[in-house]
């Protein structure tokens, strides 16, 4: 993709003749009115629209506009009402009572009640449902629906991420799915939802059309129709955007920093948005292997890597260094923590403490063995480039590093699952719920589990267990600030960067918040609108 991209750059220079029939549009019109079509591009086709089964991002992007959860995250990533108008946590923190809004309807007009919620919970906990996400919901020991508007769940042990799990479970209609096999039902391509859009039609491999639903839980949106074109190649997406055929696409740092500034005409009708992305990239050590069992070695490597340089080189500056596995700017992020500053001196002195000496040919040696290891990563250009930059910095202080790039499935099965690796460059998501038990608790080291770096710290184990049981937000915040501190100090991974999510949107789309709130620009997409004067020559197929 990168090469293709560079070629486009070249292209732009090659063909300098420009389009003279450019229409003069005044993008200043801000009059709110309902109607219009928004066309966006997505790189992959949704696999199916039942998100508890799908799991890919294309599916959830579409499904989230069709379905609702009990609660959702607001623009500052706090919980707010969705299907449930309110929720109450009992004194012993084991029971949550959701009050469901009255008068809700599915888009086919059938009332939406607590029975649907109960049905969805039953469905995801059913062992025959082919979902990888069931585990969180089986923790519910009892679910009750005393009346149409109440849904009560009780846990055996208090479970703090509970609210987050209810914010990510999309409620499905009982009246349609009751007698269907969820694993093969037609419903996955013809869903009936409750949100502000409903599925118009879906042309396989080409486009998914959503049309406005007037009886949605959150009301009706301003834009009538949402067309998602499936264009796998990002260069083609970019050409479509340049030609004005699509309104919105995700872009990469090169496009953001180099291409758009070089094309004033395109720049004039496009707004570029930058928001904190959802993931971070890290360098993870295999703590079960020498010499990475030595904290000093890990810290030394952390000091020896210049994160600013990596961000500049790989993301063209469009990212941030982080010091905890949480989104900067949210309450879970501990603001008193600072990333390890770049300091080869500190790195060297730590390594000397650990018993390493500089040998004649400028490599660090301990007990006759040179300090050398292999970084593995999957086929991801940004991660490859990151590894190369790290390799160079580590060579400067006398560490020999080799790099190996492996296709994803082999990467996971032959190296991660078996623990047969030295160091990886990989990414984790910056989760909205602070619980990271699955990634850092020492009990989660089995094959296929996620603490594959083999991190073990009893204090952290305790904190993670406590954090899962504490539903009081302020107390929870303290626990996770403490946890982040230990994690940074122990340095089982080196936080490299959290990249920004970059989006280019045609200026005819109004109502997008700038600068983007923590939840990103999409969180209020039902408030977006297209002023009448800026609409395309509409195509109506009603």
């Amino acid at each position, binding site marked *: 993709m990168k090469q*293709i991209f560079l*070629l*486009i750059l070249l*292209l732009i220079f090659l*063909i300098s*003749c*420009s*389009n003279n029939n450019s229409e003069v549009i005044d993008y200043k019109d801000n009059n709110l009115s309902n109607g219009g079509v928004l*066309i966006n591009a997505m790189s992959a*086709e949704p*696999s*199916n629209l039942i998100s508890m*089964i*799908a*799991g890919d991002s294309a599916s959830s992007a579409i499904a989230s506009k069709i379905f609702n959860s009990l609660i959702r995250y607001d623009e500052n990533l706090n919980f707010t009402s969705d299907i449930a108008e309110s929720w109450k946590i009992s004194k012993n923190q084991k029971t949550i009572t959701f009050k469901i809004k009255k008068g809700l309807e599915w888009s086919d007009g059938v009332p939406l009640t607590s029975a649907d919620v109960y049905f969805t919970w039953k469905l995801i906990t059913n062992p*025959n449902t*082919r979902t*990888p*996400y*069931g*585990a*969180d919901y089986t923790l519910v020991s009892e679910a009750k629906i005393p009346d149409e508007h109440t849904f009560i769940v009780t846990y055996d042990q208090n479970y703090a991420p509970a609210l987050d799990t209810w914010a*990510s479970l999309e409620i499905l209609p009982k009246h349609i799915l009751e007698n269907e096999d969820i*694993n*093969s039902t*037609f419903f996955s*391509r*013809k869903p009936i939802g409750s949100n502000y859009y409903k599925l118009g039609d879906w042309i*396989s*491999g*080409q*486009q998914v059309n959503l049309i406005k639903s007037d009886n949605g839980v959150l009301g009706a949106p301003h834009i009538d129709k949402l067309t998602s*074109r*499936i*264009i*796998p*190649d990002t*260069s*083609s997406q970019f*050409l479509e955007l*340049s*030609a004005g*055929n699509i309104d919105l696409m995700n872009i990469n740092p090169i496009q953001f920093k180099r291409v758009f500034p070089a094309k004033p005409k395109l720049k004039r009708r496009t707004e570029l948005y930058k928001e904190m992305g959802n993931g971070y990239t890290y360098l993870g050590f295999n703590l079960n292997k020498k010499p990475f069992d030595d904290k000093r070695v890990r810290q030394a490597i952390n000091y020896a890597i210049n994160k600013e340089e990596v961000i500049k080189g790989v993301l063209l500056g469009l990212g941030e260094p982080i010091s905890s596995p949480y989104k900067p700017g949210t309450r879970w992020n501990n603001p008193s923590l600072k990333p390890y500053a770049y300091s080869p001196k500190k790195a060297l002195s730590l390594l000397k403490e650990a018993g390493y000496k500089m040998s004649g040919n400028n490599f660090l040696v301990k007990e006759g063995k040179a300090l050398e290891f292999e970084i593995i990563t*999957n086929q991801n250009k940004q991660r490859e480039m990151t590894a190369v930059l790290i390799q160079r910095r580590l060579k400067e202080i006398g560490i020999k590093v080799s790099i190996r790039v492996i296709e*994803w*499935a*082999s990467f*996971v*099965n*032959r190296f991660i699952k078996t623990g047969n690796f030295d160091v990886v460059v990989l990414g*984790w*998501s910056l989760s909205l719920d602070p619980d990271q038990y*699955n*990634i850092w608790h020492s009990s989660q080291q*089995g094959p*296929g*589990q*996620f603490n594959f770096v083999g991190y073990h710290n009893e204090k952290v184990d305790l904190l993670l267990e406590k954090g899962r049981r504490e539903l009081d937000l302020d107390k929870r915040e303290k626990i996770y600030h403490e946890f982040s501190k230990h994690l940074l100090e122990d340095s089982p991974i080196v936080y490299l960067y959290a990249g920004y999510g970059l989006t280019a949107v045609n200026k005819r789309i109004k109502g997008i918040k700038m600068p983007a709130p923590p939840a990103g620009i999409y969180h209020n997409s039902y408030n977006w609108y297209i002023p009448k004067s800026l609409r395309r020559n509409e*195509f109506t*197929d009603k």
Partner: protein
Amino acid sequence: MLIGISLISFFIMHLAPGDITSSEASFNPKASEESRQKLRELYNLDKPVIIQYGLWLKRMVKLDFGNSFASHQRPVLWEKKDNNGNVIKGLIQESLPITLLINLIGIFLIFSISIILGTISAVKQNSIVDRSITFFIFVAFAIPGFWLALLLMYWTGVLNQWLPISGLHSLDYKNFSEIGQFLDLLKHLILPVSISMLSGLAGISLYVRNGMLDVLHQDFITTARSKGLEEKTIIFTHALKNAILPLITIIGLSIPGLIGGSVITESIFAIPGMGKLFYDSVLMRDFPVIMGILTIGSVLTLLGTLIADIGYAWADPRIRKGLVK
């Protein structure tokens, strides 16, 4: 023969590490290893490969290609109806027509243009025309398709807005008349077809050129010339017929290629064809789809060889006579 091919493909497919549960999307702390193990059991992926092959073969005997893992149990080959009368279309059923259309137009154009170019080159051997044709087809052969594709897309789509950039239909094509829809489709196919055609031109036209040169130097052509026949008649009725005989084999052998699309062309032009389908299913380790495409491919290869042989015998009396003897 088919069993041999399918057995080998099945085993090679399983040699690659990973399965549907190890896709990048499932590397998610919210997805537990137990539930992934459960999925593996539901898909029979925990059984030994030979048993999985047996299960697959059992279904294949009934011509049941199974359901895709990755796209919510959609049938691999052909549509199925559920109890409520909802039709779920098959993956290959949806991808194949468009790939076939592109490839058929492509092959037709390749052969017709190549025959013309090859004949001209041969007749005007070593002239400037011959040289420039050879030069042109080699340049076309050597140019990376995706690069030229992007250039053309930029030129015809962004700068001049003559042709659509990607996709198969305009967004409002439903409002067109039937002829309008067809023209719309053709317009969308111009670029992808010409790009996928370019690299094929070189081989075939050189084939025609060399065949033609061989024939032109044979005795019966000299005889025809000495009879005082017109040069046109000699070239088109006598020489060309003989020169394009070997093409029958090539056409036969390209039959299996008809169902294979190019991943690069399809990705760039956003065409949901067979190439993309196969590529995605390999990445997702969607075994039923991979096996489905491979099986159809091998059946077509066998058929293609047969058709080529029969076609050859039909066109060339010398071979028919050999058969009778």
